[in-house]
């Protein structure tokens, strides 16, 4: 039973936080009902549901990386560009006749190397993450264009194409399953492992964490490298699905991964949020965009609507923060 005022406050915060995720789920349900009615059932057809799930695949990797980075109080604007270059590089390697497992491993290693560059700039030269990763992003983009001269590179390797396009029972894309498993693994690491605990503590207060014997610098190295490697995986999957490494990159560019994370309640300040929320955020954006397409909204309006969705989520966060600040 709640007996003191302090306890009531605690209960209030908890309820409030819970209601955030709850609110998102309610919004998704409302979204589904609305679009289903307006589209006369087309919205929940197998075809469209599969489309929604497929549209989440690429951003899911970027989101997973972004969630970890944001909880640690960082951001990486180069991820989408790393993805693009990874798709192209893998395609080139395959074209040169390299066996696909080796091409995949080399591409991941190359992506991770870009993450290492980010880490060094941020940890050793103390660049702002925003500035460092943005610069790296442009360099990566330039190199990619130099390699390809702006032209897509075909992917014909059967194994890669299988990963990109095979559907179990002719319905469920294998890459969707693959992605969900990886997303779940990251979720479990974050929620249950020592690494996850340390991540939250370092993100919440790096100074205190260091004085309690944790190693923030090492953590930041791991996170940037991990994030770039995930970006690489996303890029390879994209290439596998399109059967080509393309040069035009990923929608929403630099903020592709952060959007879902923010919508799902991961704050830029670090130390809070989780994969569950980010997943809901991801579903929400993609279900929403798909709904607008299905009911035939002008694509320009879709962009406006996506922005509005994000603003609503952030406004909600602002009021939430203000309430918590009041407890200080």
């Amino acid at each position, binding site marked *: 039973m*709640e007996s003191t005022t*302090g306890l009531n406050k*605690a209960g209030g915060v908890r309820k409030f936080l819970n209601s955030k995720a709850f609110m998102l789920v309610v919004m998704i349900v409302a979204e589904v009902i609305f679009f289903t009615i307006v589209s006369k059932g087309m919205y929940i057809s197998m075809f469209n549901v599969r489309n929604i799930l497929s549209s989440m695949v690429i951003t899911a990797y970027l989101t997973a990386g972004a969630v970890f980075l944001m909880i640690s109080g960082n951001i990486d604007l180069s991820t989408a560009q790393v993805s693009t270059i990874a798709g192209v590089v893998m395609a080139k390697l395959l074209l040169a006749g390299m066996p696909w497992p080796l091409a995949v491993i080399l591409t991941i290693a190359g992506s991770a190397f870009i993450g290492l560059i980010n880490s060094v700039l941020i940890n050793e030269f103390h660049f702002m993450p925003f500035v460092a990763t943005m610069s790296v992003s442009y360099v990566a983009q330039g190199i990619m264009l130099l390699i390809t001269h702006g032209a897509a590179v075909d992917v014909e390797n059967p194994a890669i194409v299988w990963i990109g396009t095979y559907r179990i029972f002719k319905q469920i894309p294998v890459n969707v399953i693959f992605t969900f498993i990886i997303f779940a693994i990251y979720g479990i690491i974050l929620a249950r*492992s*020592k690494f996850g605990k340390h991540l939250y503590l370092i993100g919440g*207060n790096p100074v*205190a*964490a260091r004085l309690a014997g944790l190693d923030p610098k090492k953590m930041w190295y791991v996170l940037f490298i991990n994030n770039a490697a995930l970006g690489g995986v996303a890029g390879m999957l994209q290439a596998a699905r399109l059967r080509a490494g393309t040069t035009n990159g990923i929608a929403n560019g630099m903020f592709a991964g952060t959007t879902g994370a923010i919508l799902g309640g991961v704050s830029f300040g670090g130390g809070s949020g989780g994969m569950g929320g980010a997943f809901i955020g991801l579903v929400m954006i993609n279900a929403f965009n798909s709904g607008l397409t299905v009911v035939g909204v002008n694509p320009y309006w879709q962009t406006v609507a996506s922005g509005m969705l994000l603003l609503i989520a952030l406004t909600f966060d602002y009021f939430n923060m203000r309430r918590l600040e009041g407890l200080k």
Partner: protein
Amino acid sequence: MSNYLEFNGIGKAYPGVQALKDISFRAEEGKVLALLGENGAGKSTLLKILSGDTKPDEGSITINGEQVSFTAPFQAITKGISVIYQERQLVPSMNVIENVYSGDLPANRFGFLKRGEMRKKTQEIIDKFGLPIDPYELVGRLSVAYQQMVEIMKAYRRDSQIIAFDEPTAPLTDAEISVLFRLIQQLKEEGKVVIYVSHRLGEIFQITDEIVVLKDGRMVTTMKTAETNEHSLIKAMVGRDIGDTYSHLSRNEEIGDVLLEVNNIVTEAVHDVSFKLHKGEIIGFAGLVGAGRTEVVRAIFGADPVLSGEIKLNGTPLHFSSPRDAIAQGIALCPEDRKEQGLVLWRDITDNICMPVFDKLLKGLFVDTEKSEDLAEAAVNRYSIKTPTLDKTVIELSGGNQQKIILGRWTSALIDTKILILDEPTKGIDVGTKAEVYQMMCDFAKQGIGVIFISSELTEVINIADTVIAMHNGHITGTMTRDEATEEAVLALAMLD
């Protein structure tokens, strides 16, 4: 017309602390009034009230008979008040002229700056004070002393009639101090009301005319500088005894072998510091803010690099390159600033207590929630931390309970702390909890833990510690046993000029 400033019954409380109570005095033009007191006596709070940074709970400020009340610093500035803080309020990337005029840059009707006028007036002020400053120099390139001069010029340019200095000499060399004093003298002769906050007694006698002594947020006495001496000032600052809390402590009587030996360590802020800590001993570091006490313990803890010297634990020389190394050897630090350096405020009690030992709380690949909660619960019970649940975020707890969480972290069953360093453990916590913290320190000593204790409250240090070490300016200036240590003696060492 003569300028004067009056404080009438000023009172201010923060949660758990009565920072100021019944402060009434009058400062007049052409005189320098000293505000004297130990750390935490309330000097800074009073200056904040004067500058409009904080509102008093009770009482009022009167300037030349007119009662004023501020809700923001700019209002105080308009009323002719300038407070010159230790942390300078300048823009380093702008030049002297722009800084002198910052806040109200003069512009013509098209919005362009009157650059000529600004330059001329700034040069006039520079000449008036006879300073070798180039008005076009960027403020960030000036020495600390000259930056301070720019602050004074800024106050002068605003035509402030009341100018307060918060420990202005702390970062200055002797030569720079004499220039500053010349400036203050000039301000005084021009009929400004000057308030001078310092705890360096020598200076007080050099440049002030009147002294107001504060202790624990109350006024102890007001006197004319000419009619007093160092001895009676120190007595007034130290004041009455808190007394009984200390005689009721159950202390550790058995002091063991040498545990920690620090030989001639040097860091950026510490010079040639040596001491020995024994098992079951409590060493208290006394000194003023900035004396280097925190820096000594940070060096021992591996948080700051040690440039030279040696640290031995149980006779073995050790080198720590990070706190992690020190923790592995059984050294624990409860830092001075709980919120910034000790706790992860938005995480819950369990996480904050288990923080250093998650590798010992694993079940397979995952953190064992049950074990973690048991560990946290043990700490909550042991230190009677007042909380309804373990998953409360620590930001919601009181200062005393937050402090106990950090203590709980370092004294849990999974960590073998041999040396416990407490930096200002009683800062901002109420009297009752303070007594609890004292007893805890004695209990740690009884378990054979060596305790290093830093406090700016002298009474505390000399009554709790077995050995008192006084520091000043990065040096150890004296070491005494509890029996030898009196507040007067320690204060004299800590304020050594």
